[in-house]
């Protein structure tokens, strides 16, 4: 069973597992969905996360112990369910090893594990890739699942959909940077994230995407209805691009009729776990419209 705790008099935290896995994420997501469907009075916010979830509640409307009991019952009846998801796959173009990310990381070498290498060179080496290009091929070759949105506004935590032993892992900077380029694609632990705005950060920086993921002005075409792109459960495919394509995409995303490449798909955890590489090929074919 999951581990339950109160976060003060207004929150309940539920940890599915200490370790990250797709199964822990799907367990948390299905409890969140069941709590939402049950419309328990007094529950004000439902936050699915990587391997846990958090509920916010109003203790003037529901006794904390009563809510805890109800959520445990929901967990018990949700367990053993088929873990499937109707979601979408979105392609995010990434200019890996771009000049702005490189300029930024060079300014913070004194805070890094390996001051003589770039973040990409370091990540490739400690994950046993022969070259940066091989590493980028692995990073952009298999899709990533959005297992949490947060930290900053709209910032995704994505977990790569590959066998456990193929997971790329990197430590965070020894001391956090005070600067990160806007829309930087970066990794910490097993998670790849995208920085929605310029600011401090500790993830290893790999590149930059020309596509905004948070737009409080809601002028970007695909963020007009809501200012945040990602939802937990989205699947992301990174695609490496060069300088020319980056420059033209920067102009394109300003146009009224620009849309991200994305397709609706259904995802089954059981089918994925049986044959991850085969399953991913189908997912990526769906993105290309086959």
């Amino acid at each position, binding site marked *: 069973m999951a581990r339950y705790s*109160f976060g*003060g*008099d207004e929150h309940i*935290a539920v940890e599915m597992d200490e370790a990250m896995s797709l199964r822990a994420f799907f367990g948390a997501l299905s409890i969140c969905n069941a709590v939402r469907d049950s419309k328990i009075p007094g529950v004000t916010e439902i936050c699915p996360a990587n391997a846990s979830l958090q509920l*916010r509640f109003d203790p003037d409307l529901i006794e904390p112990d009563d809510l805890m009991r109800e959520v445990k019952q929901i967990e018990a009846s949700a367990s053993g369910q088929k873990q499937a998801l109707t979601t979408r796959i979105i392609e995010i173009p990434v200019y890996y090893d771009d000049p702005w990310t490189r300029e930024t990381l060079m300014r913070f070498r004194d805070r890094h594990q390996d001051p003589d290498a770039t973040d990409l060179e370091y990540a490739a080496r400690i994950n046993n890739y022969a070259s940066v290009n091989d590493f980028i091929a692995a990073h952009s070759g298999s899709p990533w699942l959005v297992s949490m949105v*947060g930290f900053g506004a*709209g910032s995704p935590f994505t977990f790569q959909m590959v066998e456990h032993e193929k997971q790329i892992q990197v*430590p965070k900077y020894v001391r956090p940077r005070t600067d990160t380029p806007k829309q930087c694609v970066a990794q910490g632990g097993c998670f790849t994230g995208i920085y*929605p705005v310029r600011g401090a950060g500790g993830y290893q920086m790999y590149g930059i995407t020309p596509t905004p993921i948070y737009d409080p002005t809601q002028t970007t075409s695909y963020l007009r209805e809501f200012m*945040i792109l990602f939802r937990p459960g989205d699947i992301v495919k990174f695609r490496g691009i060069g300088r020319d394509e980056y420059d033209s995409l920067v102009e394109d995303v300003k146009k009224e009729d620009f849309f991200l490449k994305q397709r609706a798909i259904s995802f089954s955890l059981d089918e994925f776990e049986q044959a991850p590489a085969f399953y991913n090929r189908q997912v990526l074919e769906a993105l290309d419209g086959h």
Partner: protein
Amino acid sequence: MVIEVIKPGLRTTVQDLGRPGYHHLGIPMSGAMDRYALRAANLLVGNNEEDAALEAVFAGPELSFTDRRLVAVTGAELPPKVDGELRQTWEAFIVEPGQILSFDFLKKGARAYIAISGGIDVPLVLGSRATYLLGGLGGFQGRGLATEDRLQLGQSMARTPKSTSVPEDLRRADPGEPVLRVLPGLYAHRITEEAARGFYEDVWKVAPEADRVGYRFRGGRPLQFVPRKPPFGAGSDPSNIVDAPYPYGSIQVPAGTEPIVLHRDAISGGGYFTLGTVISADMDFVGQMQPNQKIHFTPVDMNAALAARRVEAERLERLRSHCV
């Protein structure tokens, strides 16, 4: 119908009671750090208690008025002046067109709430007028006030306040002892029993890094962790966890050294263990603490947290019946 900003103060923002509902997408609730003081200021000038007002931290702004308004300043002891003449805090006063509202030096507390009859009329963003600085969202153009900004005011309310001052016993009293009550839990099992005892015994001092995101503390002993093999995805530092949501008021201690209490502009989640959560009744007080202030954390149970919450709710009821 507008006020003009002559000087912005240190960091003055438009705040209301916040925008809950988007924590799962990384947007915090924001809103007044001291919610009770915001409500009181609004009630004193005949506004609805959730209307938008100004939150000034450590130093007040200088504002020029273009029409006749009722104004009230609550929260921190930041004495207001109209054309240089002192006015009382926790009392409504009139500012005439052409007059200038400014402030004397801060005497006590950290954040003052400046309510103006009619409220600050910035656009509603996701249901609130509160400013979220890190996300550049809401408030006045998503940022703090700057010189020469012109803030639109709402229509003055028809309601005449029943009372133009808040009696002493309904003001935010100085707590006799500066103690923050904590419900232990979350990832508290990551530290040793002795470390937990030390955390609640030690005197902590508010660090200069104290803002709307969170309050950092220094001065206590470093925490010792229970040894473990790092779970997959957590990170190698003993204070790391697989990134999880952070409750408002939760206490994280990166590397076991400096506790941080997350506040209204909280980072919504991250990879540091948390050892408990400051109870909701004490969150307003956190927002009034100054750097270098000494405090204790003390553990309480859920019943004590709910009892403290009822005390706060009863005081708010008395404030409402006094003002409306």
